[in-house]
C-alpha cells in the first residue's frame, strides 16, 4: 500500500474551500433536522403567486356582483346578479362566447393536425440538419412576439398588402384576406403551432422506434401502425397540447383585435371593452368570471375523460 497524501486545507482548491464555508454557514442557519421541510420552502413562492391570483379572482367575483351606477360611474353597494342577467339578455355576448368557443375548437383541431407531423418528423428524422432547421423555424416566431407577428400578417394580407398587390399586378381583383374570422383563426393557428409541437415532441420521443418496427413486423402497414399504436401512445401529449392551445385561444386578445379589426371580438375583447370603453368594471368582472368558469369546466371534463395521467401525474 502506498501512502495517500494527507488532506490539508491549503492543498484544496479555493472553490472547494469556499463551498465548504458556505455549506457550514448554511447548516448553522438551516440545520439538518429542518431538511425535511426544504421542499415545501421552495414551493412557497409559487404557492404565494397562485394565492395572489386567487385573491384577485375573489375581488373579480365581488365586483361582478355589483351593478354600475350610471349617475356616478361607480359600482353600487347592493349585491345583485344584474350583471350576469344582462349578459344573458344581450344576444351579442352569447354570440361572442360562441364565436370564441368555435374559434378555440377549430384552432385546436387545426393546430394539432399540423403540429403532430411536424413533431413526428422532428423526432424521427435521421438527418440532424433537418432537425435543427425544424427546431429553429419553430423557435424563430417566439422571439418576435404575438403583436408584432399580427402586424406582420397585416403587411402580407392587408388590403394593399403583398398578396393583394401581387394579385392586382396580375390584373386580378383584390381579396378580403383580413378583418374576418378566417384571418383570426389563421393567425391563431400560426401562433399556437410552436406550443403544440413542443408539447407533442416528448410524447413521440417516448415511443421507441422499436415499437413502430414491431407493429410493422406484426403486419401493420404505415397507416395501421399510426392509428393503432403511435396515435394512442401519443395521446397524453396530444391532450396536453390540446388543452394548452384551447385555453390560450379562448383567452386570446391580440389576434382578434389586430387581425379581426373589431369584426371578430373574442371574450377577452369584450372584457377589455367593458373595463376600458364602457368603464363598467362590474360587467367586465362578470364576463371574466364566466370565462374562468367555462375554461375550468372544459379542462375538468377533459381530465375526467382522459385521466390526469395525461400530464404524467401519478394518480
Amino acid at each position, binding site marked *: 500500500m502506498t501512502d495517500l497524501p494527507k488532506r490539508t486545507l491549503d492543498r484544496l482548491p479555493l472553490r472547494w474551500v469556499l463551498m465548504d464555508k458556505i455549506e457550514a454557514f448554511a447548516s448553522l442557519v438551516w440545520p439538518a433536522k429542518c431538511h425535511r421541510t426544504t421542499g415545501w420552502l421552495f414551493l412557497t413562492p409559487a404557492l404565494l403567486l397562485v394565492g395572489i391570483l386567487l385573491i384577485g379572482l375573489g375581488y373579480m367575483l365581488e365586483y361582478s356582483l355589483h351593478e354600475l351606477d350610471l349617475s356616478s360611474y361607480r359600482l353600487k353597494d347592493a349585491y345583485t346578479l344584474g350583471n350576469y342577467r344582462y349578459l344573458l339578455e344581450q344576444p351579442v355576448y352569447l354570440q361572442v362566447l360562441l364565436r370564441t368557443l368555435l374559434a378555440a375548437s377549430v384552432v385546436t383541431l387545426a393546430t394539432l393536425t399540423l403540429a403532430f407531423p411536424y413533431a413526428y418528423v422532428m423526432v424521427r428524422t435521421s438527418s440532424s440538419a433537418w432537425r435543427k432547421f425544424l427546431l429553429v423555424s419553430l423557435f424563430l416566431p417566439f422571439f418576435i412576439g404575438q403583436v408584432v407577428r399580427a402586424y406582420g400578417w397585416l403587411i402580407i394580407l392587408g388590403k394593399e398588402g403583398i398578396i393583394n398587390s401581387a394579385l392586382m399586378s396580375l390584373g386580378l381583383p383584390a381579396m378580403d384576406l383580413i378583418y374576418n374570422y378566417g384571418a383570426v383563426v389563421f393567425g391563431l393557428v400560426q401562433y399556437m403551432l410552436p406550443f403544440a409541437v413542443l408539447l407533442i415532441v416528448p410524447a413521440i420521443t417516448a415511443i421507441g422506434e422499436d415499437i413502430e*418496427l*414491431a407493429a*410493422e*413486423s*406484426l*403486419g*401493420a402497414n404505415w397507416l395501421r401502425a399510426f392509428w393503432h399504436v403511435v396515435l394512442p*401512445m401519443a395521446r397524453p401529449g396530444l391532450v396536453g397540447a390540446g388543452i394548452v392551445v384551447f385555453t390560450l385561444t379562448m383567452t386570446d386578445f391580440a389576434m382578434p383585435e389586430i387581425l379581426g379589426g373589431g369584426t371578430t371580438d373574442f371574450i377577452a375583447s369584450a372584457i377589455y371593452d367593458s373595463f376600458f370603453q364602457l368603464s363598467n368594471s362590474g360587467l367586465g368582472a362578470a364576463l371574466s368570471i364566466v370565462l374562468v368558469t367555462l375554461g375550468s369546466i372544459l379542462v375538468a371534463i377533459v381530465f375526467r375523460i382522459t385521466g390526469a395521467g395525461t400530464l404524467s401525474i401519478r394518480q
Partner: protein
Amino acid sequence: MSTADNMVEIRQVSRAFDKTVAVNRANLTLAQGDFLTIVGPSGCGKTTLLRMIAGFDEPTEGHILIKGQNVESVPAYQRSIGMVFQKLALFPHMSAADNVAFPLRMRRFNPALIPELVEKYLDLVKLGHLANRRPHQLSGGQQQRVAIARALSFNPDLLLLDEPLSALDKKLREEMQLEFRRIQQELGVTTINVTHDQREALVMSDHMIVMDEGVIQQSNTPREIYSRPGNRFVAGFLGVTSMFKGSVVAIENGALSVELGTVTLLARGNEQLFSVGDVIDCALRAEQIALIDTEDSRYDNSVSGLVRQRIYEGDRMVYEVQVEDTGGSSVYVFDHDPGKNGEHDVGASVRLGWNAEVFYAFPVVEKRVL
C-alpha cells in the same frame, strides 16, 4: 440451386453505409425448423443482417430468399416473420392478450378464431392467467413471454430474435434460453437468433454462425465451431482463450512444431496454411490445460509458470499463470476440482500440460475471404 426445403437463403448479401460495410457478402442457408444463432461482438453486422431479413433494411448487394421467393420488394408488414426485439417493444396501451391479438387483427385473421388463438399462444408461454395485465404490470420474464407469444401467434414462417435476452439477469436469462428452445422445438418454427452471448449460442442452436467486421467467420454446428475454430478470431471469441505468439519450426505428419519463447511445442493447424518460419498465433482454452506436478507423459506439451492470481468461483478455481518459457505471457487455467487437486498459492510455481490437438495454430496475418 435454390431448393424449396430451405426456409431462408442469403446469397452474397452486403450492406454498405456511408463509410462502413456492415455486412460483407454473407451467404447462408437455413432449413425448415432449424434454430440458427448468429453470434459476434457488437458492431459485427449481425443485427444489420437480421434487420435485412426482417425487411427493415435493404441489402446494397445480393439477394434474400424466403421459401425460395426473393423478398426484395416485399415490405416488412407483408413478410411472414415474427420478431422479438431487444427492448421487447410491447404495446403499453394494450393488455397481454391484445398484444398477442394485434398481429392476428392486422393480418386479418377470422375474428371468430382470434380469441382461441390468443389463448393457445398465451398458454404456450404459460401466461394464460395473466391475459388481461398490461405490460407494465408484468415482470421482465413475463413480458419476455408476451413478446414471444405475440411474435408467434400468426404462425410465421420465420422467427427472429434480436438479443431479447440481453437485458435479463443471468439466472432468468438461462431459464429463458431453455424456454425459447422448448417453444421453438414444440412449434418447429425456423428461428434466427442474434446474440453477443456465446453461451446462449452454444446452448440454444442447431446451427451457429460467428461474425466479425461484417464477415461470416465460421458457420457450423456449435460443437464443431467450439472444438474446431476456423480462425484466430473464432478461437479467441469462444471460451476463455489464451494466445501465444511464435513461429513454425517444423511440419511433420500433420503436426506443427512451433517455437514459443524458449520452448518448442506441438500444435495443430492446417498444414497448407503454413511453411517453416511463419509467424503464428497459438490459441489454448483454459479448460484444456492441466495443472501437473512433474513431467507427465500424457501431455504433448508442458511448461512451467508462476501463479499470479487465484480466483475462487465456487464450481471451479481460476488461475492466472505467467509462463516464462513462452516469453512471459499469461494464461488462464481452470481447475474444476480444487479440493482433490490441491490449491496453489499466489507466487507458487506450477507446471502446465496440454495436448497438441487442443493447441490451435493460426497464421498471424489472417487472410479473410472477401
